[in-house]
Structures are given as structure tokens and as C-alpha cells.
């Protein structure tokens, strides 16, 4: 149980990473507003894991392509997400994972005396069915999981704060996303205290009722995790993320989408055999964004608590 518990806090195995809203410093603005963490820990029959994550996502870096640009407007943009996630294994090979979220967005222009905007509400949900033909055990050092799922538009996407807020300020996307996912882990020793892992996922987004479609998204991660003793562990992940430009009414929006490489370190502690806590962060390493100017992630950090039954 504790091995799974520690793994539950590994950001490297987070299925759907917090999406990076991309904001143009111009009229055109688009972003992916929902932060999603999905617990994918349950693999062996009868496993049931639940987790709660609180994420603080600061989005204040102004970037032109790969270059940082000073922001004289003093923009302050942040998203705060709370995510409840659970996974359950029906058999030794089949499991399901589900996620629900609550999202708050804040936006303020420091150089302006007006216009501090905040919006919050229930965000989108995710349901994923997963098949694991083999997994790490005393008899195997390999683990493979394949999954298909849906992002369900349970979140609000028509919040008004004087005016109808832009898509990136809405808690929900308002549209279904179709998810494909796969991960592989390798244990360097029989106790599986040191693992290497990789994961890949793709989300195909549909258009919402505002005729807005967030760009399709691809993620690829590689990382290492190690347990230090029976309670402590850490991990380090490099993640490549690519999103297509968003579209409205079929037209591509400038200054949206791009490519990112992030470093995601995490430490975790198993308080008991069933209860664990983890702290993770996300630090941009490189990025190449579409268009000529976008606001993007400065950093983010999250605290996750997990419980296994």
C-alpha cells in the first residue's frame, strides 16, 4: 500500500497536468483554464485511492516566442484549483479514475486603478478507464498502463463579471475533451525504491457552445523517483507539453498555443501506511510560444494529500 501511496503523489504520473493558460497581451487571448490532477494509483484489484490537491498557478511571464519580455503593465494573473480525485481497481488489470475540481481565477493589472476580476466555480471533471497488462510487483519490474477517458464539461463557462468573461477566466471549458493516455515505469530493484517512468497523453478538445475550442494538447514526461527509507520519497520530472492554437468559430486564434518544457520536482511523505502528503512545483525550463506575445506560467506549486483504502 505504501508504495502505491508514495506513487500517488508523484507528479510524473499525474495524468493531466495543470494546463498552462496562454494569454496574449493584445486583444486576442486564449487559454486553457482548468487545472486537473488525476489520481492513477489504483492498479491491483481492490485498490482504492483518493487524493486532494490544492494548486497555486501564477501566470505572469510575458514571452515572445522563447524570449522573456518585461511587462510594464504589472499584470497579476493567478489560478487556484482544488481537485478531488479517486481511483479504484476492479481487477488486477482494469481500473477507473475520476476527478472533480473547483477553480478560482484572478486577474489584475497593476498599472490600472480598475478592473480587478475574479471568477470561481466548479470546474470540469474527468473520467478515465485504464488497463494495466502488467505492473511492478515482487515478480515484475515493469509497469504499463493504457487509458481512455473523457473530460466532462461540468464547470461553468458563462460567468459574468460586469461583462461575459473570457474563456481563460472561466472555471470550465464548456466542452468535452477526449483523452488518450499511456505510462510505463521501470523499477531498478526488486523493492522498487528507485524507478524511472515515462508517460504520454493527448487530449482532443471539442468546441463549446461559445464556439470556442481549446487547442488539442499533447504531453510527454520522463522522470525518476526514489524512496528514502519507508516514509520519504522524491521525484524529478521533465515534461514536454505542446498545444495547438485555440480556435473560435473554426478560426485559429493568434498568440495561443505553443511548446513548453517544465521541470517538476516533488517530495512526499507517507504519514501512515494509508495517508501521504506531497509537495510539488513546476518550473519553466524552456518554451516556444505561438504568436508574438503571450502571458504564460511563471511557476506553480501544489500540495497533495492522499489516502488509500
Amino acid at each position, binding site marked *: 500500500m505504501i508504495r502505491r501511496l508514495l506513487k500517488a503523489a508523484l507528479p510524473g504520473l499525474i495524468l493531466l497536468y495543470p494546463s498552462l493558460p496562454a494569454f496574449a497581451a*493584445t*486583444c486576442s487571448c486564449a487559454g486553457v483554464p482548468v487545472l486537473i490532477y488525476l489520481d492513477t494509483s489504483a492498479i491491483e484489484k481492490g485498490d482504492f485511492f483518493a487524493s486532494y490537491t490544492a494548486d497555486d498557478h501564477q501566470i505572469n511571464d510575458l514571452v515572445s516566442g522563447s524570449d522573456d519580455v518585461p511587462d*510594464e503593465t504589472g499584470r497579476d494573473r493567478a489560478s487556484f484549483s482544488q481537485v478531488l480525485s479517486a481511483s479504484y481497481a476492479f481487477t488486477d488489470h482494469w481500473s477507473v479514475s475520476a476527478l472533480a475540481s473547483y477553480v478560482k481565477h484572478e486577474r489584475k493589472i497593476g498599472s490600472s486603478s480598475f*478592473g480587478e476580476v475574479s471568477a470561481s466555480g466548479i470546474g470540469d471533471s474527468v473520467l478515465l478507464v485504464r488497463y494495466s497488462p502488467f505492473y511492478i510487483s515482487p515478480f515484475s519490474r515493469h509497469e504499463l498502463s493504457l487509458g481512455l477517458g473523457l473530460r466532462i464539461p461540468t464547470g461553468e463557462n458563462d460567468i459574468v463579471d460586469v461583462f461575459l468573461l473570457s474563456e481563460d477566466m472561466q472555471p470550465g471549458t464548456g466542452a468535452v475533451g477526449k483523452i488518450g493516455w499511456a505510462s510505463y515505469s521501470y523499477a531498478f530493484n526488486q523493492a522498487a525504491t528507485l524507478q524511472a517512468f515515462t508517460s504520454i497523453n493527448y487530449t482532443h478538445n471539442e468546441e463549446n457552445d461559445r464556439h470556442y475550442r481549446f487547442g488539442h494538447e499533447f504531453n510527454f514526461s520522463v522522470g525518476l523517483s526514489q524512496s528514502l527509507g519507508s516514509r520519504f520519497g522524491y521525484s524529478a520530472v521533465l515534461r514536454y507539453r505542446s498545444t495547438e492554437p485555440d480556435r473560435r468559430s473554426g478560426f*485559429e486564434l493568434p498568440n495561443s498555443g505553443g511548446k513548453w518544457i517544465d521541470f517538476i520536482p516533488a517530495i512526499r511523505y507517507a504519514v501512515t501506511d494509508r495517508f501521504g502528503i506531497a509537495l510539488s512545483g513546476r518550473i519553466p525550463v524552456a518554451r516556444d510560444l505561438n*504568436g508574438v506575445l503571450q502571458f504564460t506560467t511563471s511557476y506553480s506549486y501544489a500540495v497533495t494529500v492522499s489516502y488509500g483504502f
Partner: protein
Amino acid sequence: MRTLKQMVLVLLLLHTVPGSADSDEFTINPGLNDAWFNPATGGQGFFITVYPDIGQVFLAWFTYDTVRPPEDTGAMLGDPGHRWLTAQGPYSGASAELTVFVSKGGIFDGSEPAADTDPSGDGAITLEFADCTAGMISYEITSLGITGEIPIQRVQPDNQALCETLATGGQLACTRPEPDRSHGPNNPPVINRQIIPFVEIVDGGPGVDGIPALEQPEFLTNPTTGSLGANDLVVGVKIGDDIRAYPHDILNWHEIVNEQFAMDGEMRGASLSYCPLTGSAVMWKSTPNSADQTFGTSGTLYNSNLVLYDRETQTVWSQMLEQAIRGERVAEIPEKLQVVETSWATWYAMYPGTRLLSRNTGYSRDYDEYPYGTFREDHSVLFPADNQEDTRLHRKTRVLGLNVGDVSRVWPIRNFTGGVEILNESVGGMHVVVAGSSELNIGVVYNRQLEDCTVLEFEAVQDSLPLVMRDTEGNGWDVFGQALEGPRAGQRLQKTNSYIAYWYAWTAFFHGASIYQ
């Protein structure tokens, strides 16, 4: 003999109509358009119509035959003795000389057999008015050899006041349409301090002031032709001797420039706004005596067009409607200033002494980059906009648009000839002159009816920029609608509700615009 009769008539009228103005001072005007009759001959009468633009009077006379037809004479409709005559001719002062016409051979509401009218006429009518209430008709029917005089008065006095107003001083008062009103509905309903449903105003993403306006920025005082690309577009402003050019390359990133100009004998604030999504530029004077005369970007869009806010009251204003749409000053219309959008080469050729907005704005923006990708050329519309099914033109066609009340017309810049093309047109009852050139990349439209109601006719002037047109009085006018030479030198043509914008944006705001082909 007619002269003597007219003198007698005038004397009679002056004598018989107490309180009326002297005949010499009265001028026939459209306020006389009415039904007139002689109370002594009931069942007969006249309709009189004055056409001031062509200086003509039309008269229809409903009367009877000179003798009653035999009792057994029949008629399918009406009395067999019914007769009507028409008369038409020029007027001058208080009198009009009309030729009488007799039409015959036609049939009720039918084209066959065709009616026939002898164009040489059948006599003459002299129409004399003493004032707005009474006149005298003197007739002579050639074929019958009869003459006579009929004193007439109005059937109803409804138009008398209009007549008296128009007749002041023997000259017509000005009735030209006033264009300087909102592009939007007149007297729009204000609900919850807004005239646009809030759901139609959308958040563009950057937030209030997220696109930073420029505040009294630096200018290059001696730019050269090479300071910008020859085809780079600029918004040109000329206020007195203060001539400034604002490149689109900079406006794309800031959208608003808050400025100060010497106007009306004092320094006044003015804000130039340019929306890169709709390609429209307008300039407004600030409100006098306001504590903060500047505008900022609201971060919202209406019909994909910039929505500004004034920093004093936080009222939000639609750029293309040129009207406050929400807040304390809702429905207010700003006082507008003329701008000219054109290429740098054309602007510099017209005004080599211009100042040019500096790229040293204090913001880290790459002004060589256009921030919206292929938006200027493709069919995309990035934010909701109305009436996008109107695809008579490519969405990004730059059009000069004019709105007069409920009537709208556009002139695609590319449809103008290469040299200066001048069009004398009437739109929504307003006489306008359009000056455009596809090669010079200019398009402006002004009211060509002057304050004294003179309607000017223009023709193009080539190769004399900034002079672009000359009128029949010999005045030469520049691209800002100012007479630079001639008897009206110094005068300005009246600004209209017009500016250049992308077609998709114009049709989103002003449905059903006619298009100059």
C-alpha cells in the same frame, strides 16, 4: 401689360392682407407647398410644389370646363365636366412664371392609350405671393383666348410657420442634415445605465488597461521618408498647424493615445483610438473641465471592436458606435476630430513637416511584429460579431464607411481609381463628397452642403496633394476638407460619421450598407 398687372396685384395684396410682409421681401420657398383654393369657387383648387434646388414651381389646377356639358353627357368616373391642368416654370423672388399644359387621351390608372401633352403648352400662369398666407394666380389660356385672376389661400395653415421660417430675410434657412450624431440608434433606450445588452460585450482577455494606452508620447520631429515603409499605414491628424502621424505598427499594440492639442484657444485633451481587430481609427475631444480627460482600454469588445473607458467616470464607450454604451455617461456622444488614414508615403508627401509617433513608448514591444498573425488577410473573426452572413466583400476589405441615420454606404478603398477620384453623392438625404484613391490609399467623405445651404459640386485635382478637389466656385480643398484657396479659403467642410474599417466590422455595426462598385 403683364408688368402693370403684377404691380397692381402686389399693391392689392399688400393692401388686402394686413400684417403681411412686403412683396419685395418675400421669397417663394418650400413652405408654400400645400393645397390652395379660392373660397368663392368651392370644389376647385390648386396643389403647389416648390423645388428650390432647381428653382421651379409645379402647379396642378383642378377645375371644370368653361361651360357645363349637356345634361345627358355621361362619364364613367366623376363629373363629365371635370378638368385639370398643370403648369410648371421658374420662380424668382415672390413670383413664378409658369407654362400651362393640357394632357389628354389617357385612361384611368392605365398606360394605354397613352396620355399626350403638348410640350409647347396652352397658355401661361403668373403666380404671385404676398406672404405665406395669400397669393394671386393670373392665367391666360391661349386656345380659348381667356384670361383671369384668382386670389388663393391655404386650405389648412399647417405649413405656414415653416414658410415663414424659410422666408426670413428673403433667403432660405439652412436645412442640411446634421451628421454629428451617434452612429447608433437615436435616443437609444437606456436600461440599467447601458444601451447594449451586456452579454454582447465580451471580455477580450487582457483586462482593463492590459493593453496599455500611451500618454502624451514622444514624437520624432523631423522624420524622413525612410522612417517608415512607404506602404505602412498611419493615422494622420491635423489640428491647426499641429500635424502628427501615428503608425499602425505602434497603435496595434496600444490602441489608444491620449494627447493634448491647442484647440479653441486652449490646450484640450484628445484621444486617438485604433482597433487592430476592426481596422478603425477615430479621435475624440475630451470632455471640457473633466478631472481626468484620458481614455483606457477596457479589455472588452463589442462586435469584435475596441471598447474604451473614460478614466474619470469609468463609463465604457464603443469605438465604432462613437457613443458611451454603459455607465454614468451612457448614450453620450463625443465630439469628434477628423483623422486621415493613409500610407506613410502619401502622408509624408502631403505633410513633410509632420511629426511621427516615436517607438520609444516606454513599453517593451516589438513594433516590427504584427500581433495578430494573418488576421489582416484571412477570413477569421476572432470575437463574436453580428451579421457575418453578409459576405458581399472579403471580410478584411478596407472600406470607407458613412452612416447617416439609418442609411449606410461604403466605398472600398481598392475600388477607387489610382489617381484621386471625386464622387458627388447623396446618402440618406445628405449631400456628400467622397475623395479616394486606391494608389494613394486614401478615403474621406465630407458633407458638401455648407452652412448657408449651398451645395457644392466637386471635381478631382491630381498631383497637388494635400489638395484633392476643387468646386465649381473655384475653391481648392485638401484631404481634411479645408479650403486652401479660393473665395472660401479657410472654411471647412462638415465632418461626417465616417471612417475606414474592415468590411466585416462595418457590416456588423451597420447592416445593409450599399457598396460603391
